[in-house]
């Protein structure tokens, strides 16, 4: 699904990613860990074509296409979804209208028929009921006045409705309470159908317990320093970075 080869990325003249190599196959769950400033967020933002990230070298192949050739909305319509750490507020734009428009742009991009209002409301009701997520968020303006938890719940609704193929989670659990984290995990796990892939950034805690990763990568100073399976995360949690051979560059 996704193949990253020798990726170098700079932000404001500082090289952050210094040669990333990563292979994500359909259905796999990858966790990205590492100290602050290692470049985790940068990697995920680069994949979504964030304006701050400038690719200086390397290749990214997504579904056999050159990802660097596609712009932000094209990548989204090809099935890449990035959840934001702190989703921005867009007052004046109705949340429901926004979501329906996004769904229809994706459908148009893929040559499918548009979803009408009735169908949209029906599907939203079904999906949000499954996970006990409050639908009322959709009546408000996009993220406008939403609490941290409400913003994250809104991201989940978008996830369920847009049905992406590659899900990039940038610390989706940050700031959430125990119950909220369970809801996030339930939603994500429900989407793991063997074809969908996940790349999630997290510091080890409850989330990894609930969404078991197939691969754990530890990013350090712009490169993937170590790769293992779930046991690597447990080892990191128990012993800390230095003990497993990672020098914390942020210190």
């Amino acid at each position, binding site marked *: 699904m996704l193949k990253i080869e020798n990726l170098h990325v700079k932000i404001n003249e500082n090289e952050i990613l210094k040669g990333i190599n990563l292979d994500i196959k359909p259905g796999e769950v990858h966790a990205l860990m590492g100290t602050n400033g290692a470049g985790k967020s940068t990697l995920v933002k680069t994949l979504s074509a964030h304006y701050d990230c400038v690719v200086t070298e390397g290749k990214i192949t997504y579904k056999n296409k050159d990802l660097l050739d596609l712009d*932000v*909305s094209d990548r*989204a319509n090809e099935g890449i979804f990035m959840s*934001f750490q702190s989703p921005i507020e*867009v007052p*004046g734009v*109705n949340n429901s209208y926004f979501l329906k428009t*996004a769904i229809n*742009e994706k459908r148009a991009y893929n040559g499918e028929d548009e979803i009408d209002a009735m169908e949209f409301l029906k599907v939203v009701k079904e999906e949000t009921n499954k996970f006990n997520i409050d639908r009322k968020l959709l009546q408000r303006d996009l993220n406008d006045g939403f609490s941290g938890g409400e913003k994250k719940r809104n991201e989940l609704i*978008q996830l369920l409705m847009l049905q992406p193929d590659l899900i990039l989670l940038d610390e989706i659990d940050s700031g959430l309470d125990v119950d909220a984290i369970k809801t996030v995990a339930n939603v994500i796990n429900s989407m793991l159908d063997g074809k969908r892939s996940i790349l999630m950034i997290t510091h080890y805690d409850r989330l990894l317990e609930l969404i078991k990763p197939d691969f754990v990568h530890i990013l350090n100073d712009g490169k993937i320093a170590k790769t293992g399976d779930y046991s690597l995360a447990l080892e990191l949690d128990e012993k800390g970075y230095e003990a497993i051979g990672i020098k914390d560059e942020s210190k």
Partner: protein
Amino acid sequence: MSDNKQIHDVINKEYKLGFETLVQSDTFAKGLNEDVIRAISAKKDEPSWLLDFRLKAYAKWLKMEEPSWAHLNYPKIDYQDIAYYSAPKKALDSLDEVDPEILETYKKLGIPLEEQKLLAGVKNVAVDAVFDSVSVKTTYQEELEKLGIIFCSISEAAHKFPELVKEYLASVVPVTDNYFACLNSAVFTDGSFVYIPPNTHCPMELSTYFRINALDTGQFERTLIICDENSYVSYNEGCSAPTRDERQLHAAVVELVALKDGQIKYSTIQNWFPGDDKGKGGILNFVTKRGLCKGDNSKISWTQVETGSAITWKYPSCILAGDNSVGEFYSVAIASKSQQADTGTKMVHLGKNTKSTIISKGISAMHGVNAYRGLVRVGKNASNARNISECDSLLIGNACHAHTYPYHEIRNSSANIEHEATTSKISDEQLFYISQRGISEENAIAMIVNGFCKEVLKELPMEFAAEAKELLNISLEGSVG
């Protein structure tokens, strides 16, 4: 904020209505003097009292000085370098006789000059089409006449309904009110006249569409709308002009009079050529629009979407003379490329228990400069006056400006005045977020702008709301942001 190429492309889209119509016109030589005015009056075969009106106004104009206080920057207008009359040569008695080129023009603009059969559930719109200095056609006149409603050109009204015109012309905007109104009173060419008799709800939207076509001419239209007791009318004004290198002057006067329990809704969707990137060409739009809520419980609402014109100087106002009268102003003004807009409104509270609402949304993009100037004046005897003002500015890009100059002159202590102003910017972050959900940047901007203007757009009559939204999107194409 990083520069975004796509946004630049969006605002740079070409003015679609900039085509020119090649038609044989009767155009006066440039220059302004008493003879020119007599010639205009003669061309229209006007009664002598109207010629007198013009000449008196001209004499006063010669003694006046052009205003210079607006936050506007424009080279001096040479009033002798303008032709004050231009009309298509062919006679215009029936639609058949109208020059086919002109019919084609209105077709291209999407203005219906043929009366269409009533479609189920869809209201028709009566149209008065004004091409340069003359009214080309007014539709549905007979149907409206059956209800006693008069909708015709001002030239026609001067002949057919002189008493009405004499009573109300210049009753809301006195001849010497301001420099441009005075000039207009001397050289006005055509415009619409509307009279709604008492207890009548006008069954269709009345609309005038102004098209400036001839080179080097100015357009000075005059509109007069009178709504008698307990009546209602919704009127819409549209306009466009070809793309040209030279600037063209547009100095119009619009007067509205609402008698007891009368209601007038006046909407404008203005799409003049904004001038090119460097500010060359474009329309100089100096307009005086004023509504008089003469009778008790009367109401006048101004709704406007302004996206064109190089320089705009325009303050639709309401004089709330009748007790319990209501004045409203809803506006979206875009200043993009090198446009400059100094616009706003005046609400003058004179009667008791009067109420005014002002919602102004200014969008500045590229090198545009938007200034809002609002006056709320409450007279000594205007007890219990209420006003709510909301002025919001949206900035797109780093080179544009927005200024707000609210003025309050309150002479009665029972007045309740509220004023709110916000300034915001479309951020890269917001655009990225929306794009990351699959929505193209162009549509993302349109979404945010529409959300910003929602309150104003919903005041537009349904028939014109879609056009206004489309116009907003087109005007902001390429402005990124």
